[in-house]
């Protein structure tokens, strides 16, 4: 199968394109589509030899890699080392294959790619409407907020809409300058310097920049009132978060965790919770559908009232 064939099949057979969140492609296996928790196999009614399903092969995977990397895999060396690359539109392509290690045991690259997971980024304006009221304090300023969920539950989508609403202003607070450190180009989905997603009129984006360095740079150069970053989780991040907060700036960030309790059990996050760096925690779930808000907690882990 070629990439063009897959494109045609997706156009013909994909039931509800807007609901599809992932396209999983594995060499020698049927292409599957994941939408809101359910998985369907991509049908190929014209295919006689392999039954009625669209089966991927090595050639298809190579072609897709050529397309997503724009014939320039070298430009995504660092991303490939992390196991995925982010493409135009903010979509994330996960890569699985044979790891190639360097002399010191560090991962150099991935070759013989056998599986791809294309996670489609969705801009859902208004998805933060249900939680934004909890994220403003009595003085109408934004509270530092950490969005928690397992992967694929809509953290980045919610973060994007929060940034837009905080930047433009909403009925709970006036618009303020927001700085976005978009390490993986997923929040703003910048293309040639221009954000493809609406992040509001007072938002500055530092694209493809390592989080910690980006946070320091944004504080020094753009004087934001709120800073947004995706997927925090290292000691360096914690240091940068402290620096940002000491500058009087609020933070909206995301992290992988199932719940507030799960967060407290991890050494890095436990320190952060103890220091009360964040005054709001928004917990999301994939069920019944991605983006479902489980609860909004305060710095002590107790549910907050608007």
């Amino acid at each position, binding site marked *: 199968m*070629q*990439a*063009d064939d897959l494109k045609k099949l997706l156009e013909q057979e994909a039931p509800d394109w807007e609901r599809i969140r992932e396209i999983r492609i594995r060499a020698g296996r049927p292409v599957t589509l994941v939408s809101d928790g359910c998985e369907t196999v991509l049908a190929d009614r014209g295919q006689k030899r392999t039954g009625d399903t669209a089966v991927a092969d090595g050639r298809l995977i190579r*072609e897709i890699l*050529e*397309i997503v*990397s*724009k*014939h*320039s*895999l*070298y*430009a995504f*060396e660092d991303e490939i080392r992390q196991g995925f690359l982010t493409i135009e539109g903010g979509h994330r392509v996960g890569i699985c294959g044979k790891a190639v290690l360097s002399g010191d045991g560090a991962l150099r*690259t991935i070759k013989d790619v056998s599986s791809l997971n294309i996670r489609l980024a969705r801009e859902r304006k208004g998805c933060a409407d249900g939680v934004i009221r909890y994220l403003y304090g009595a003085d109408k300023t934004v509270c530092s907020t950490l969005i928690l969920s397992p992967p694929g539950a809509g953290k980045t989508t919610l973060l994007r809409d929060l940034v837009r609403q905080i930047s433009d202003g909403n009925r709970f607070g006036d618009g303020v300058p927001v700085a976005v450190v978009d390490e993986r180009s997923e929040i703003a989905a910048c293309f*040639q310097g221009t954000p493809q997603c609406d992040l509001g009129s007072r938002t500055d984006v530092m694209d493809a920049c390592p989080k910690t360095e980006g946070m320091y740079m944004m504080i020094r150069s753009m004087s934001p009132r709120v800073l947004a970053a995706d997927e925090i989780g290292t000691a360096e991040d914690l240091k940068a978060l402290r620096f940002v907060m000491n500058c009087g700036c609020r933070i909206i960030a995301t992290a992988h965790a199932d719940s507030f309790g799960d967060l407290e059990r991890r050494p890095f996050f436990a320190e952060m919770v103890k220091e009360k760096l964040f005054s709001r925690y928004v917990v999301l779930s994939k069920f019944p559908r991605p983006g479902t808000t489980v609860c909004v907690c305060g710095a002590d882990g107790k549910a907050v009232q608007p």
Partner: protein
Amino acid sequence: MKYVGILLMSGALIAGGFLAAERLRERLRILQQFRQIALCLKGQILYSNATLPEALGEAGARFSEGRSGTAREPGELLLRVRDRLKQESGRPFSEVWEEELARLPEDLPLEKQDRQALSALGSQLGYADRAMQERTILLYLEQTEDSIRDLKGELDGRTKLCRCMGMAAGLFLMVVMA
């Protein structure tokens, strides 16, 4: 009438000699331009970490704007490849590059070895890591430098030869026909 014809034919032969000499100079200019383009691509790829379409677009625009005739062709080649990569994103870069090389005007003053060097450049660009891109471009630069050095070394002599041959042929024709 006969003498007018002889004069015209002799003049054409002499002009042919001068054109052949000019073609050599033109080849030198085109090679120098491709060398600059390769340096620009190297900067785009290694410094800006640009993808091939971005690097080709940047270098192509830089080397086609404000130029005309054959001087515009190297930049236009890059822009055509970039456009086709966007339209036919599933095709390998090397295939598109090869096809567009074949579409370069026949009268573009490039020797077979110049086209082969360009072809080799396209066959390796985009493959493997950044170090590989650097080595590929450096190899092309080395080959082009050699061609430029050889051409410069013999340019004066060959230019004179072409002009003299043209004039000699013209005079010879004049003598024979008259």
